[in-house]
């Protein structure tokens, strides 16, 4: 059970003077249940890639399959949910409840079954029943984002694609969003996130993929990412600091993402130095 992308190429405005390759020979696979981060500079093809994984765009060459089905298959839309880069655009109904219920009722769920889908989505995203009858547009940015996410989750997708789910959110809302995504993964949903904030999410990820001008630049585990010698990869500030300290001769390791670990390592290293000095 997995998403398989093979030799995928795509360009916008094909055959016109504005033709531009957005994806070039991209191949990778994502296993069911994984937590995957996709990064890369502005315009490198991340959103274009996500839109291929739920069949919104069709490859010009190559293939995309989800659990063996071609991504163009209608069944894919309920199997693979997509949260857009501007989730406000995903909200339109008069109330939060109607918004969340839209997709499942659209494909024919009614009464208890529909309620069950909505309840599932609200529970997963931690949306309080007390706001189900208010307008989604009266909510804060963070809540709106969660409602849009609930609308996607109401289809009970097995794969969840998220395009910059934390941009524009304040720190409290960001950690609420990340916590929710971690819980979704624990309930069996495969999480695929496009983000510029790799360092913020690196400790959650199992696989990291970096795109560069439509091609894969790096794919591997967070550890491999940090030890990669490719200079184009953006490291978390803490990791860069540890690397610099190590280069300067301090006895610390470089695969550190958290402040706690960095503090421990630095204290230990400095004590060692002091110890030697005392000898």
């Amino acid at each position, binding site marked *: 059970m997995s998403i398989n992308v093979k030799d995928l190429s795509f360009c916008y*405005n094909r055959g016109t003077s504005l033709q531009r390759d957005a994806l070039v020979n991209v191949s990778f696979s994502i296993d069911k249940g994984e937590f995957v981060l996709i990064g890369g500079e502005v315009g490198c093809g991340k*959103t274009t890639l996500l839109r291929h994984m739920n069949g919104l765009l069709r490859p010009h060459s190559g293939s995309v399959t989800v659990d063996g089905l071609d991504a163009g298959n209608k069944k894919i839309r309920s199997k693979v949910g997509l949260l857009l880069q501007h989730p406000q655009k995903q909200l339109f109904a008069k109330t939060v409840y109607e918004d969340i219920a839209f997709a499942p009722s659209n494909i024919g769920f009614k009464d208890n079954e529909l309620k069950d889908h909505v309840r599932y989505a609200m529970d997963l995203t931690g949306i309080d029943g007390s706001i189900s009858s208010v307008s989604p547009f009266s909510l804060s940015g963070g809540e709106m984002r969660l409602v849009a996410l609930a609308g996607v989750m109401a289809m009970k997708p097995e794969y969840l694609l998220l395009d910059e789910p934390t941009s*524009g959110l304040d720190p409290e809302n960001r950690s609420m969003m990340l916590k929710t995504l971690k819980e979704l993964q624990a309930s069996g949903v495969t999480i695929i996130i496009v983000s510029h904030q790799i360092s913020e999410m690196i400790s959650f990820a199992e696989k990291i993929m970096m795109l560069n001008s439509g091609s894969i630049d790096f794919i591997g585990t967070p550890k491999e990412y940090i030890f990669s010698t490719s200079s184009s990869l953006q490291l978390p500030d*803490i990791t860069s600091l540890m690397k610099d300290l190590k280069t300067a001769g301090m006895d610390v390791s470089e695969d550190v993402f958290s402040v706690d670990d*960095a503090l421990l390592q630095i204290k230990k290293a400095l004590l060692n130095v002091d110890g030697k000095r005392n000898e």
Partner: protein
Amino acid sequence: MIQLNNVSYCYNENDYALDSVSLEIKKGEFIGIAGRNGSGKSTLIRLINGLLLPLQGNVNVMGMDTMDNDSIIGIRKIAGMVFQDPQSQFIGMTVGEDVAFGPENLGLSHEDICGRVDTSLKAVGMYIYKDHTPRALSGGQKQKVALASILAMEPELILFDEATSMLDPVASEEVLKLIKQLHNKGVTIVYVTHRLEELIFADRLIIMDKGRIIHDDNPRKLLNEENILDSGIYLPPIIELSRRLCSEQVIEPIRLPISREELMEALCQLM
């Protein structure tokens, strides 16, 4: 340059998005603003360039009151604004036309306009997209074009409302460098962001909460304050590490290191 006196604003009755805010910004200052979602940052910015008018109090930009109908045009000429959502900002059919729109309104010559369009598109790395339609750009590319449109007007004051939220780290660093250059040339900058890393060199850091300014101080001083986290901001990891190294007496808490370079320097002295 900018003066707000007891300014209040509500979108809905009795629900204050901005609650008696007074603020003075001097010419050439770089002001950073942070705070929770819904704390009033965008509302404050919109009041400064006259997109919103105060319900109470008054807003004055270079001697012009925003309530004065005639001043709005004058204010728009000297104050550029880059919005949170660049979508709402596009008017032209092509990226080039879009960037030209501002300078055209300033009544510049054709050559001057073309020159400014090319220079500012090159400055943000979007020159190759000059003939594309702005609607077909990626999220981050739209933000870059919105920025170029403002640069082309060469304003004396620029208001940035989360203008780099969709840029990758390298691009946002480049944009920030560009903004610092403008600042060095004397342009007044008001810069809203959730990423405090971007504000450590600001002249003043303002934290908003519930429609009020709850902190307004030098960033190094503010980021060292005990209860700063109560205001809903987060500390960049490097600064959190610095604070803990200071509080555990590993490094001397005389001057809190607030960048990676500063912390590196402080630690190397101990080796």
